[in-house]
C-alpha cells in the first residue's frame, strides 16, 4: 500500500496533475475492490512494486503528503475481512481451549500459522491490536500446555488419591457404594473421617495452637454487673419480706373500732334506706338482723344494731305480739331523743344460741339477710 502511494507521488514528481491521476487510481481501485478484494489487491500491488523501483528515492517526501482518507477508501473491505478472520480465529481457539491444552494435538501450532498468514496483510493498528490479542491468548495456552507436560510426568492420579484417603481413614467398605459415598452417608461417619484426616494433617504442620484463656477471657463488663445484681436481688428479697409484714401490719393497724364504726354506719344507712322506702313501718328486729346463712354474721349484726340503738337512731320495743321491732327515730326528734334518753335508759340483753338462731330462721322463714355483706 505504501508502495502504491509512492508510485502515485512519483507521478506527481514527474509533473503530471496529481489529483486527476490519484483520483483515477482511487476510483479504479475501489471499483475493483467492489468485486473481489484480493483480486483488486493483486494488480495494485504489482503496479506498486513496479513503481517502487522508480520512486524509491522519493519515499521520504512522498509519505509526508499522504491523505489518510485515501487509505480508508481503498482498503476498508480488506481490513474488515482481516479483522473478521482474526476474531474468528480467537473465538475458535477459545472454544477449543480444553482440547488444545489437554491433548497433544497440533491445533495450537496450526492456529499460530494461520495468524502468521493473516499478519502479512496487516498494515494498520486496528488489525495489529487484534493480532496482539491473539498472541497473548496463544502464549497463555502455550504456558498451560507446558504445565500440563509437567504434571503428566508426575503420575499423580487424583481419583486414586481420593480412594486412598477413604482407605486411610478406614472406610474401605464405602467404595462399593459408588463415588459420592461420603456425601450421603451418615453424619457420624463424615465427622470421624474429617477428624482422622485432621489428626494426620496436623502432624505435618507447625501450626501455632489457638490461644485461649483457660477460664475464659476476663472482660470487665460482666464482672461489674455481678455485684450489682446480687445486692439488687437481696434488696428485692428484703422488700418482699418487708411487704408481707407491712401488709399484715396494715391489716392489723386497722383498728377494730374504725371497722366497727364503719359497719355501724353502713347498717344505719341500710336501715334508713328501708325506713325511707317504707315510711312509718317498723321492721321486725329478727328479720333485720338475722342472716340465715351465717350465725356469726347474725351476732355481728346484733352487735352493730345495738350501737345504732345506743346512739338513738333507732328504737327497739316490743310490739303486740311481744316480738321486738325496730322503729325509726326522726332527726327532728333528736331533742326528744335526748329527753327520752334523759327519761331513762333501758338495757336489754339478747342471748342467741345456735339452736335459737336456727329456730328463728325456720319460724320466720327468713330466706335472705337484709343486711348485705360488706365483702
Amino acid at each position, binding site marked *: 500500500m505504501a508502495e502504491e502511494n509512492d508510485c502515485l507521488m512519483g507521478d506527481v514528481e514527474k509533473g503530471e496533475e496529481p489529483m486527476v491521476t490519484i483520483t483515477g487510481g482511487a476510483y479504479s481501485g475501489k471499483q475493483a475492490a467492489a468485486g473481489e478484494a484480493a483480486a483488486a489487491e493483486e494488480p495494485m500491488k504489482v503496479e506498486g512494486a513496479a513503481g517502487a523501483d522508480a520512486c524509491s528515492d522519493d519515499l521520504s517526501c512522498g509519505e509526508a503528503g499522504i491523505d489518510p482518507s485515501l487509505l480508508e477508501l481503498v482498503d476498508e473491505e480488506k481490513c474488515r475481512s482481516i479483522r473478521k478472520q482474526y476474531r474468528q480465529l480467537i473465538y475458535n481457539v477459545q472454544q477449543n481451549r480444553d482440547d488444545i491444552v489437554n491433548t497433544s494435538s497440533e491445533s495450537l501450532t496450526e492456529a499460530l500459522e494461520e495468524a502468521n498468514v493473516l499478519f502479512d496483510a496487516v498494515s494498520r493498528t486496528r488489525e495489529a491490536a487484534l493480532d496482539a490479542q491473539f498472541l497473548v491468548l496463544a502464549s497463555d495456552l502455550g504456558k498451560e500446555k507446558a504445565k500440563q507436560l509437567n504434571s503428566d510426568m508426575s503420575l499423580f492420579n487424583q481419583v486414586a488419591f481420593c480412594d486412598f484417603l477413604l482407605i486411610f481413614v478406614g472406610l474401605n467398605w464405602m467404595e462399593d457404594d459408588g463415588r459420592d459415598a461420603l456425601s450421603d452417608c451418615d453424619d457420624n461417619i463424615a465427622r470421624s473421617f474429617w477428624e482422622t484426616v485432621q489428626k494426620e494433617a496436623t502432624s505435618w*504442620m507447625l501450626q501455632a495452637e489457638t490461644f485461649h484463656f483457660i477460664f475464659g477471657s476476663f472482660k470487665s463488663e460482666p464482672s461489674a454487673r455481678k455485684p450489682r445484681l446480687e445486692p439488687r436481688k437481696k434488696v428485692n428479697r428484703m422488700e418482699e419480706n418487708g411487704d408481707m409484714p407491712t401488709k399484715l401490719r396494715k391489716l392489723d393497724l386497722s383498728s377494730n373500732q374504725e371497722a366497727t364504726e364503719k359497719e355501724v354506719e353502713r347498717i344505719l344507712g341500710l336501715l334508713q334506706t328501708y325506713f325511707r322506702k317504707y315510711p312509718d313501718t317498723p321492721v321486725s328486729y329478727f328479720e333485720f338482723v338475722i342472716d340465715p346463712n351465717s350465725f356469726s354474721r347474725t351476732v355481728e349484726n346484733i352487735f352493730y344494731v345495738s350501737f345504732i340503738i345506743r346512739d338513738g337512731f333507732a328504737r327497739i320495743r316490743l310490739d303486740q305480739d311481744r316480738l321486738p321491732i325496730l322503729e325509726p327515730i326522726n332527726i327532728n326528734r333528736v331533742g326528744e331523743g335526748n329527753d327520752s334518753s334523759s327519761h331513762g335508759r333501758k338495757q336489754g340483753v339478747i342471748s342467741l344460741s345456735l339452736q335459737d338462731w336456727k329456730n328463728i330462721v325456720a319460724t320466720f322463714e327468713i330466706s335472705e339477710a337484709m343486711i348485705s355483706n360488706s365483702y
Partner: protein
Amino acid sequence: MSQKPKSRGRAGTQAERGSGGEEAPSTSRGQGGAASQGGRRAEASPAPGPRSQKQLELKVAELVQFLLIKDQRKIPIRRTDILRHVVGDYKDVLPELLRRAAERLEYVFGYRLVELEPRSNTYILVNTLEPVEEDAEMRGDQGTPTTGLLMIVLGLIFMKGNSIKETEVWDFLRRLGVHPTKKHLIFGDPKKLITEDFVRQRYLEYRRIPHTDPVDYELQWGPRTSLETSKMKVLKFVAKVHNQDPKDWPAQYCEALAEEEARARPQTGGAAPTPAPSS
C-alpha cells in the same frame, strides 16, 4: 542464651522448663527474671526518653498477649494494628519491643514470630515444636477441623505441579462429600472456607486465570504454608495416605528435596525479626 527447643513434645511444661521459666507474660514482675534477661536489658538500656525498664516490660507483656490473641483467627497481624492498639507512644522502640516479645513467645510458648514476607509488615506465629501423636488426644476440640481439608488441598496443589484449577479442586472434593454450593456438616460453606478464609490466612493464593470463559481460578500455595510446612512434608502426607514411598513420585520428590536444600542454606537477610535458632 538461645536455647534449642526440644525436638519432640509440645507440652507446655517442657517449653517452660527449657526457658527462664519465671518469665511469665504478666507484668507483675517487672525487674525479675533470669540473669541473662538482666544482661540483655543492660544492652538495651539506651531507651529514648524517660521510659523506665518497668514500662518497657509492661509494654512487651501487653504485646505478647496481643499477638497471642490476634493469632487465634490465624489472620496475619499487621504492624499498623500493633502500633495502634498496643504500642502507641512507644513507636520509636517498636523494633526492640518486637524483638523482646518474640523472645518471650519463643521461650515460654515455643512460638516463633515471623514476618510473612520480607517487607510485608505482617506477622504470624509459627510453632517451633514438632507435633507429637499423644498431643492430639490432649488437644481436644479446637474448633472445626479445617486443617485436614487444607492439607488435602495443599497436597493436590503440590502434586499437580504447584498450581491447580478451582474446578479440579471441586471435582475432587465432591467425591468426599464437600460441595461448593451445598452446606457442609462440618465446614459450613466450603467454598468460602477455601477461597476466602484460607486465602485471608495466607495458606492459599487464589488467582483468576485470564482468558477463561466461564471464569476460572487457580489455587497455589500461600506464604504461610511455606512457613508452617514444607513440600517434603506434604509429599510425605500424600505418600502415607497412599501407603507408598515418597520416592514413587520422582518429579515431586526432586522438587521437595531441592526446597529442603534451599532451606538448609543460611538465609540471606532472614525474614524473622528475632535471632531465630537455625532449624
